[in-house]
């Protein structure tokens, strides 16, 4: 069996002698003093947390809010990785934690921040504490454990958690960039964005033109999960092995399905993915094997997403459970009750833009893509048949049996 390799990179994000401070300094040199705003703008760095928002714009708006409110801002490194299918944040924090911390120190300096946080899975914190002890950052970084909950990485939920409140999304008036942790303007950046920022600050512009992809495949029936650093614009067919795949989940559980034949030719950038109804998201690329039922997999994921709703907004609290239950029915190899698809469509139409966060919006997009991509499967179920030759789930769903 030949391992699928990622395209060649010069100085990839995960390359390095090791995670210790000494190894980091030997590989990357000292932290430079730079005009961060200009550098980030020119490199065209965009967020790697899922929304893909231009980092320079985010930096500017927090700086403006800090000036307007005359409150020193707070910077947060978001390593929550609420996306169960992704492993890039954990990998990054294990392999190159000092790049992340460098990035955090750089934004803290650029904004004149009074506090800095790194939020990550509880299990990673002891190791991170050791790495922190080797550093002498002007603004000390406070480590914060995050619950393994899908929405824990949502900006306002994370800020609430840092304030000691339950990790639930808050209303966006005002947004966290104006009023976040401790009522201060808060900059929340994904750990990958910060690591890339740390490389950009050292003159490595290519670092802004790549992304960490969590690949999930099956090769000859054996599951394969890894994290690779891939240039933006790479062909998905070159990154993923798609021989026995029927469809690709692009982005993560907040992403969308694309049929394998089409996905192979898509490139990992906005202009190629958008017409296919997809986006980079959390960088997950999962190739669904042909011997699985796409509807069953999606039903499992949507059941999880519905359970992970914060339960704060009426439309989401009512719509997602109904859609999830309907998908469970549609995932069975039996004809569905008439009108169920129409109901799913109607409920889906009632959710976008009506919650405090984009959780319901993303879920209905995923469902719509599944119903489109797996329409043949749906027809098969209507005739009491199903493609699945194994009961083994492909996509990991926390909490399921």
């Amino acid at each position, binding site marked *: 069996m030949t391992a699928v390799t990622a395209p060649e990179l010069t100085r990839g994000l995960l390359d390095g002698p090791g995670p210790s401070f000494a190894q980091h300094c030997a590989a990357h040199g000292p932290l430079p003093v730079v005009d961060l705003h200009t550098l980030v703008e020119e490199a065209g760095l965009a967020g790697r947390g899922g929304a893909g928002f231009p980092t320079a714009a985010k930096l500017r708006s927090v700086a403006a809010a800090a000036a307007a409110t005359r409150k020193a801002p707070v910077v947060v490194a978001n390593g929550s990785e609420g996306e169960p299918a992704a492993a890039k944040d954990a990998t990054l924090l294990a392999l190159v934690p000092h790049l992340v911390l460098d990035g955090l120190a750089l934004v803290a300096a650029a904004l004149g921040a009074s506090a800095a946080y790194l939020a990550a899975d509880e299990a990673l914190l002891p190791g991170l504490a050791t790495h922190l002890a080797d550093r002498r950052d002007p603004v000390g970084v406070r480590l914060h454990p995050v619950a393994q909950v899908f929405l824990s990485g949502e900006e306002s939920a994370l800020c609430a958690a840092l304030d000691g409140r339950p990790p639930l*999304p*808050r*209303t966006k*008036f005002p947004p966290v960039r104006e009023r976040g942790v401790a009522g201060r303007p808060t900059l929340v950046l994904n750990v990958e964005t910060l690591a890339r920022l740390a490389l950009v600050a050292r003159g490595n512009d290519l670092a802004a033109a790549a992304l960490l992809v969590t690949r999930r495949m099956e090769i000859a029936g054996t599951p394969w999960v890894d994290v690779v650093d891939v240039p933006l614009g790479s062909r998905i067919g070159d990154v993923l092995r798609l021989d026995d795949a029927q469809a690709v989940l692009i982005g993560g559980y907040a992403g969308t399905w694309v049929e394998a034949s089409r996905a192979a030719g898509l490139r990992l950038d906005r202009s190629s993915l958008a017409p296919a109804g997809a986006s980079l998201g959390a960088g997950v690329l999962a190739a669904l094997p042909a011997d699985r039922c796409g509807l069953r997999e999606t039903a499992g994921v949507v059941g999880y997403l519905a359970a992970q709703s914060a339960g*704060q*907004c*009426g*439309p*989401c609290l*009512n*719509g997602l459970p109904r859609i999830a239950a309907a998908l469970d029915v549609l995932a069975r190899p039996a004809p569905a009750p008439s009108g169920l698809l129409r109901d799913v469509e109607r409920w889906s139409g*009632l959710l976008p833009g*009506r*919650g*405090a966060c984009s959780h319901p919006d993303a879920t209905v997009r995923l469902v719509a893509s599944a119903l489109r991509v797996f329409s043949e499967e749906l027809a098969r179920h209507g005739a009491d048949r199903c493609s699945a030759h194994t009961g083994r789930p492909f996509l990991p769903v926390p909490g399921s049996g």
Partner: protein
Amino acid sequence: MTRLAVDPITCTGHGLCAELFPEGIALDEWGYPLLAAGELPPDLLRTARKVAAACPTRALRLRDDGRAG
């Protein structure tokens, strides 16, 4: 532009708003408000202010986006 906006966390679906402003607010099948898109016409501003004041949880507010269109 001035428009009505609902804070979806605070809104618990009382439904007074739709009764008082049927031209601009409808209720979905679960009793939660659906706001008409676009800017509020100037002659409806007074009504909008009154409806926002009537919301039992103060979830409905009049917002000024400060942008045209």
